[in-house]
C-alpha cells in the first residue's frame, strides 16, 4: 500500500457520503420538535460525529487487519470488561442500563462489543481453515463460537437491549453459514432457529399466559403493537401507526422537505433517531426511500465484492460479519417503521442521529477498508485466495 494515499476506499466513501447527506437532511427536519431554540443543534453535533467517525475509520483502515488476527481475544476481553462495567456503574435511561459516562462522551459498550465479537469469531473461523470440516470438528468449533457469543449476549440482553442482542446473533449466524463448517451443523442451527421461532409463535398464539409471565411486559407490548397497530394505538402501536401514516402519505414524491405533517407536528417520536426513516418516507416519498435503500444495498454490495476479492480468510469473515451487523440494523430499523418488524431501539446506520452507533459503524467500515487495501490482485489466481 502506498504511503502517500489516504487509507480510503472511494466507492465506500461515496456511498457513505450519500447516506450522511440523507441523514443530515432528515435530522434537521426531524429534530424540529426537540430543538426549538437552535434548529441546527443536532446537525452540528452530527457533523462533528461524522468527522470523528471518518478519522476513526481511516485509523482502523491504516492498521493491517491481519496483525489483529492473533489479538482478537484481547479486544474481546476488553469488550466484556466494559459490559461488566456497565452492569455496575452504567447510566440508566428509559429503563435500560447501556451507557458508560466518560464525562465528554457517553459510550455504549455493546456497540463496540458487537465489532469485537465479530472480529474474534472471524479469527476463530479463519483458524478452522477454508476447507470443509468434518462433523466432529465442526461441532467443536460451533461450541466454541456459541460459548464466546453467549457471554456478551447475556450481558447485553440483561441491560436490556433486545435489538443489539438480535443484531449480534444475526451476524454470528451469518458467519457460521458462510464458514467451512459441516452442512449438518448448519442444518441443525437453521433447524433449531426455525423450531425456536415456531415455538415463540405457538406460545404467542396459544399460550399467551406463559409469555406474559416470562417476557418483560414492554417487549410484549411492542409485539402486540406490531401485530395490531390499530388495536394498540395508545402504546407502541401508536408510534407505529403514526409512522406508517406519515410514510404512506409521502406517496411517490413526498410531501416536501420540512413539510411532513406527521413529523413536524411531533406525532412521530424520536424522528431524528430511531424513527428517522419516517422523516425520509414522509418528506421524500417512495423516490427518497427507495434511493436510500439502494444506497444501503450498494454499500453491502461493495463490501461483498471486497469479501470476494480478499486473499485472507480472516478478511472475508470480517466483511461478512460487518455485513451481518449492518444488514440487520437496516432491515430491522426500516422494517419496524413500515410494519415489517416489531419496534426495537436500533438506529438506522449512518443516517440516524447519534455518536456511539455512528462511531462503531465507521470502525466497521474501517475494518472492511483495511481488508480491501491489503487485497493483492494476481493475474492468475493465487494460493491465498479463498477460491
Amino acid at each position, binding site marked *: 500500500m502506498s504511503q502517500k494515499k489516504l487509507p480510503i476506499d472511494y466507492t465506500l466513501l461515496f456511498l457513505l457520503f450519500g447516506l450522511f447527506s440523507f441523514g443530515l437532511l432528515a435530522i434537521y427536519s426531524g429534530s424540529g420538535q426537540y430543538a*426549538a*431554540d437552535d434548529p441546527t443543534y443536532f446537525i452540528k453535533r452530527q457533523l462533528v460525529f461524522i468527522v470523528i467517525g471518518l478519522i476513526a475509520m481511516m485509523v482502523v483502515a491504516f492498521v493491517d487487519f491481519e496483525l489483529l488476527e492473533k489479538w482478537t481475544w484481547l479486544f474481546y476481553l476488553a469488550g466484556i470488561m466494559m459490559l461488566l462495567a456497565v452492569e455496575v456503574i452504567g447510566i440508566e435511561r428509559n429503563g435500560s442500563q447501556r451507557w458508560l459516562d466518560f464525562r465528554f462522551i457517553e459510550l455504549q459498550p455493546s456497540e463496540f462489543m458487537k465489532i469485537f465479537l465479530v472480529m474474534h469469531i472471524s479469527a476463530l473461523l479463519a483458524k478452522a481453515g*477454508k*476447507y*470443509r470440516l*468434518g462433523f466432529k470438528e465442526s461441532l467443536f468449533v460451533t461450541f466454541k463460537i456459541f460459548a464466546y457469543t453467549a457471554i456478551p449476549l447475556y450481558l447485553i440482553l440483561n441491560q436490556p437491549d433486545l435489538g443489539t442482542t438480535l443484531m449480534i446473533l444475526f451476524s454470528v449466524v*451469518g458467519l457460521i*453459514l*458462510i*464458514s*467451512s463448517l459441516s452442512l449438518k451443523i448448519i442444518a441443525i442451527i437453521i433447524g433449531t432457529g426455525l423450531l425456536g421461532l415456531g415455538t415463540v409463535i405457538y406460545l404467542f398464539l396459544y399460550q399467551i399466559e406463559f409469555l406474559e409471565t416470562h417476557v418483560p411486559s414492554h417487549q410484549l407490548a411492542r409485539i402486540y403493537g406490531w401485530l395490531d397497530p390499530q388495536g394498540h394505538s395508545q402504546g407502541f402501536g401508536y408510534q407505529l401507526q403514526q409512522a*406508517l*401514516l*406519515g*410514510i*404512506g*402519505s*409521502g*406517496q*411517490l414524491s413526498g410531501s416536501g422537505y420540512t413539510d411532513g*405533517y*406527521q413529523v413536524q407536528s411531533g406525532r412521530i417520536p424520536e424522528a431524528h433517531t430511531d424513527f428517522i426513516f419516517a422523516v425520509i*418516507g414522509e418528506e421524500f*416519498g*417512495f423516490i427518497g*426511500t*427507495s434511493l436510500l*435503500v439502494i444506497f*444501503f*444495498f450498494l454499500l*453491502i*454490495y461493495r463490501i*461483498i465484492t471486497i*469479501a*470476494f476479492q480478499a486473499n485472507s*480468510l480472516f478478511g*472475508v469473515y470480517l466483511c*461478512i460479519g460487518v*455485513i451481518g451487523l449492518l*444488514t440487520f440494523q*437496516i*432491515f430491522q430499523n*426500516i*422494517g419496524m417503521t*413500515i*410494519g*415489517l418488524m416489531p419496534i426495537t431501539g436500533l438506529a438506522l446506520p449512518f443516517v440516524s442521529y447519534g455518536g456511539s452507533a455512528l462511531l462503531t459503524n465507521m470502525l466497521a467500515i474501517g475494518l472492511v477498508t483495511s481488508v480491501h487495501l491489503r487485497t493483492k490482485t494476481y493475474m492468475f489466481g493465487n494460493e491465498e485466495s*479463498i*477460491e
Partner: protein
Amino acid sequence: MAKKKKRTTIPIRLNVFFLFVFLLFSVLILQLGVVQILNGEEAREKLNETENTKSTIAVPRGLMYDRYGRLVLDNEPVRSITYTPPKNGDSNQTKLEIADKLAALMRMEESDEDLDELIRERDKKEFWYVYDREHRLAVQERLSEEDSELDASARYQRELDLITAEDYNMFDWSDPHLLNTVAIKKELDQAFELSAHTIKNEGVTEEEYALISENLGELPGIDAKIDWNRVRPYGSLFQSFIGNVSSSDAGIPRDNQEYYLNLGYSLNDRVGESGLELSYESYLRGRKEIIQYTTDNDGNILGTNTVREGQSGHDLVLTVDMDFQAALDEIVKDELETYINQDPYRNRFMSDALVAVLDPQTGDVLALSAAHYNRGDNEYVDEAYRTIYDAHIPGSIVKGATVLTGYQQDVIDIGTVFNDRPIKIAGTQVKKSWRDFGLINDLGALEQSSNVYMFEIAMRISGATYNYDEPLYNFDRSSFQTMRNSFHQFGLGSKTGIDLPFESTGYVGTNIQDGGLLLDYAIGQYDTFTTLQLAQYVSTIANDGYRLSPRIVKEVRETNGNKELLGPVLESYSPNALNRIAVDERYIERVQQGFRQAATDGTGRTHWANNPYNVAIKTGTAQNEFTEDGAKQYTNNLTLVGYAPFEEPELAFAIVVPRAGVGNDQNGIHHNIGNRLVDEYFKIKAEHNQGITVSEDETLADGVANTVTEEND
C-alpha cells in the same frame, strides 16, 4: 491432507448469503411500495382527516313551571370562550401566538383602565421572559453561582426577581392589545392538558363570539361555546327545593365520578347538585349534541357530521302554586317576627316557624315554608328546607295516631271510656292531662287532648299492670316497636317518599327499658318528626287512611320551544299510595270527628270555631327542655296539624314552632299561621276559579284504592 476433504464451499455460501441479503432488501422495497404507492393515497386521506374535532353543544336544561304553568326556573344563554390544551400542553411560544390572535378578536376587559389593572408587574416580567430566547439567556447570565443550584421553581422565581423594569418596559404597556394579549396568556397558562378552561364567560359579546367561531381553525384548543345559566324569575322563592346545578368548572361531583361517567357524562358537565335539579336530573339534563368537524391540516372545515342529535332537557311542572307559596312565606315570616317581638325575652330561644301544606287527596305539595330568625343579624330568612330536614318533638298532635293504634291493637274501641286522673309511676314525676277530665271517651280525648287517655292506650298495648306509685309490672319492651310500627303507617318516623334527594326521618329514642317513656311517646314527647312527616300524618287521616307520598313534581313535559306554552306531557304522576292504615274506616272517621271537635269545641275552639272553611285540627304543645348557657331552659314546641274542608279535604297542613317561650300558649302563633294559611288558600283558589283556568284535577279516590301497597318497615 486427504484430497476429498479439501473442498471449500465458502464462495458458494457467500453467494447464497448475498442472495439472502438481496432478498431482504427486496422485501423492504416491496413493502415500501405497498405502504407508499399502494396504500399511500389512503394514508394521505386519513392524515388529512386526522384533524377531526369533535365538539359537543350544550343543550338547555329543562325548565320548571308551577302548577298553573308559570315559569319558576328559566335558562339564559351564556357565551363562553374556552381553551383546551393538547396532551403535554402547548409550548409558551404557541400559547403566545394563540393569545396574540385571540387578543385581536376579543377583549378581557371592556375599558383600557380595567385591562391595565388586570396586569401586574409579575405578568409583565413573565411576558418579557417568554417573549424571546435571548431574554431568557440574558437573565440566566445574571444568576449567581448559588442561584444556579436552586431547584427549578425557586430558580424561576429568582430569575423573575432579576428582571428589571427597564427590561420589561421595552414593551409599550399602554398598548391595549399588548395588555389584552398578556391577560389572555395568563388564562391560557392556567389550563391543564386535555381539560377545558374558561377564558371568558362573562360579557362575551355577540361580535366576539362570532369572530372567534369563524377563526377557530387558526386557534388550536380554543372553543366558543354556548352555555346555559339558570334564571329564577321568582328569586329565592322555593329555591331550596328547586336546588342548584354545578358550574361547568366544577363539573360532575368528584366523589361520585364513576356513577356519572357510566351514565355518559363528561367531567365538565353540569349536573344537578341538590333539590329537584338533582332528583330529576335524568329528565332535566337533556342530551348534548355531538358534532364532528372534519378539517384539513390548515384547520379549514371540510365537513360536519352530526354524530348525535341534541335534545333539550324535559320540563317539570310543579305541584306548588307560587302565589300561595309566596303568601305563605310572608305569613310565616310575619307571624314569627310578630310573636318574637311580643316578648323577646321569653321567646329568646325561638327562631323558627315551619309549615308544610299538602293536598291530602293527591299528595301534591302545595307549599313548604320555613322562616328562620338570625339573631346575630336580626334578620328573618327563608329556610324552607328545614321542613324536611329538621325534626322536632311534636307533642299532642300525634294523638290521632295513638288512638288509631289503640283501635288497631284492640285495646280500645269506639266509645271506650277511661278515667282521666293523674298517673304516677314509681320513681317518676306525676303524669297528667292539662286538666283532670274524669271519665272521658275516645272522641273527648281527641277534642280535649287528654294525655291520660293516651297513657291508658300505651299501657294496655304494653300489657303492663298499673298501680299508683308502683313500677309498671309486666311491661313488654317490644311494645315500643309495636307503637312505632303503627306510627310508621302515618309517615311518623319513616320516609315520606317525597321526590327530593334527601329527607330526614327524625330522631328515634333508644331507651326502651323505661315504660314511662312509652307513655311519653304516646303523647308525642319522645321521638322527633319533621314537619313534612307531620303533614303526611294528618293528610293520611284526612284521606281516610291512605298514605300518599308527597310530590313536588306533577308531570314531566317535553319542550316545544316556546317557554310560554307547556309542551306535550311525557310523564304524569298519579298519586302514589304507600300504604293504608290497617283499621276499619269507621275508626278513621272517628278520629276525623275528634279532630273536627277539637276545632269547634275543644282545645282550638277559640281560634277555629269561627273559621268558615270547616277545619279539623289537632293542637300540640310539646315541652322542649334543653341545656343552654349552663342552665336548663324550658320552652314549648307549639304545633298544629289540620285539614280543610272537613267533608272533602283539599289541603292538609302541619305547623311547628319550636322553642316558644312558656306562657300564654293559647295566643298561639301556630293558630294564627294556620288560620291565615287556610284563608289565603281559599282566597287564591277563588281567584283562580274566576280567572285563570286551573289545570284539570285528576279524580283520585278510585285510582288510589287500586294502587294501595302495604308498607313493610
